[in-house]
């Protein structure tokens, strides 16, 4: 199934584009999407800390996946996932 991915800030540079359509298997999860997009150790380093905590925000249709089922959150056709880094300042 087709998932729309929107990158923000650093991830635009990493992927060289603002948006992308990604195909994941039917009944795919966020983790499947991550496997497709972050397909090298270098890329996985952008989103996972040493103990595999997410370093960035993954928003599924506007909701952070941490408030859903995390990486196990199920996706459905035409979902939008926003991927962006953690950031803060004053």
């Amino acid at each position, binding site marked *: 199934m087709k998932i729309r991915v929107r990158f923000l*800030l650093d991830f635009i540079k990493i992927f060289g584009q603002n948006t992308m359509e990604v195909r994941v298997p039917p009944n795919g999860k966020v983790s499947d999407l991550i496997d497709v997009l972050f397909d090298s150790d270098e890329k996985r380093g952008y989103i996972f800390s040493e103990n595999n905590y997410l*370093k960035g925000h993954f*928003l599924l249709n506007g*909701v952070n996946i941490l*408030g859903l089922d995390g990486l196990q959150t199920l996706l459905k056709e035409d979902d939008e996932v926003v991927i962006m880094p953690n950031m*803060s300042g004053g």
Partner: protein
Amino acid sequence: MFAYNGKILFVNLSTGEIEPRELDESLYRQFIGCLGLGIRIIYENTKPGFDPLGPDSMLGFSVGPLTGSGLHGARFAITGKSPMTGGWGDANCGGSFAVYFKNAGYDGVFFTGISEKPVYLFIKNGVAELRDASHLWGKDVYQTEEAIKQELEDSRVRICSIGPPGERLAYCAAVMHDQSAAGRSGLAAVMGSKRLKAFVVQGSNKVPVADPERLAQLRKTFLQGVKNVQHPWGQALRDYGTPIFFDALIPPGSTPIKNFAVQGEEAFPDYALCKADEFMKYRTRRHACLGCPIACKGWLELKDSKYGSISGTIPEYETITMFGSDCLVSDLAAVVKANDLCNQYGLDTIEVGATVAFAIECYENGLIDDKDTGGIELKWGNADALVAVVEKIARREGFGDVLADGVKVAADRIGKGSEKYAMHSGGQALPAHDPRGDVGLGWGYCCDATPGRHTANHVKHSHDCKVAFTLSDRLNFPDLDPLDVDANAGINAVCSAVDRVITSAGLCFFAMWTEQLPLIEAIAAVTGWDFTLEECIKTGRRIDALRQAFNIREGVDTTEWKMPERVAAVPTDGPMKGKKLQFDRMKLKGYEAMGWDPKTGKPLASTIDELGLRELVDDL
């Protein structure tokens, strides 16, 4: 002694007496400088229970050992008793004042008393004099700066001043310098209560450092680090300044929208009109605090807007949020105008923005009406109303007088159950970071001696975000779930201590995201001390504990400082849907880890002894 002038000034504004006092190096070593020096001097030299706006109140200005070192040290602290919280207050500010202040020959100036007529203090290369400011009283900050430069016939003097809101003791007021603000804690009202219009410095005597070669080496590495910065936050600051955080923090829900009621892009799609790129269209030049290679600030020119042509600083993230998304205003010109009004009159954009958002919610819910507001239609997103009400606050005019002392006092004045719309902790408005999103800052909201501060807990927040920061490789904290309160409390205590040392040294938090900031090594190089990481942490804990001891001494029950109900709740929609934070437990475990009694917030006797504070803190 290196890196310090070794002396401070006490200025009694009631008598006009100016008394220099030499300080022992051991005091500097225990408290470093800036806010550390401020709490040390003020704790010792004030009597418990004093009125923050009375003659016994002491107001400090101070600098640190890295001020003027060429290593990003351009911040100074203003310290005293906060009229907003009734406890400890500090604020800090960049620009160039700190360097000129230190070069003028003093590490701190502490004002007491109340002058019979308005005055300003002028220090030039070690010589201090109080000068009449009667002719400046009532003038705004821009006019004041211009007039002082003219009468001193020196366009290069550096000035901290207050405008009419500070003179009229508005808690929303800020002490201004170079269109930057030392805004939090209501200390501009303390300055106004003393009839101290300005503090002016001119200095050219650079303070020697212990090991100039080592410092030059560290500086070279640091500057190279900034030039080639890979750290995402460092890059963002260098390229855009803080407005980029508006782009970055709206989507995950960290940026307050509609008085902290909602979160995320869908809650305020028009936020795109105030994204960083929009402000950059009007940027005329980048601007840096003196000696800072990052240069996160900028100037803009907005020609022929509906509020006229405006030339001034680009609003910071805090300002864009508090006047923008928090009031549902997406009109860039209105945000720029409101910011400019605050700079002109001397107002804290955070407290003012929070108070306007509160007032809008009161208006929308019928607690106040046009009669109360003087005809201003205070509706969500009404840009003209925002500008109009900020101007009223600046003048303490009509409804502006109701709002001028910040969100807590405004709620007390309006009554009718309006407290539930007042987003504050302990009397001070929450800044532009929802603690459910920026959890590290939330630890500061819960545990710091000054509640609701965006400059209190950036080290912990950096750790939570899993990004590198100065010392992160040496602190080597375990990689944890940021929401695990018990596991994070000890880390927060250490992070808080490091925060205090960064600020007390005269540095800016933004320097720590360049990966090359040699905090410990630089303090050692300038002072000649065998300063270690362990000493750094213990020193920071000492400063934290004494600030908190001040709160306890002044009778403030900090355990009563709570998150507003709305902010403490679990979001039912938006990006943070379902995210639950245990703020009460963060306070409890946070205090415990800091060596404070979790039930009372009082630093434990063992903590007082361990930190060498017994002699000073014998009155708790």
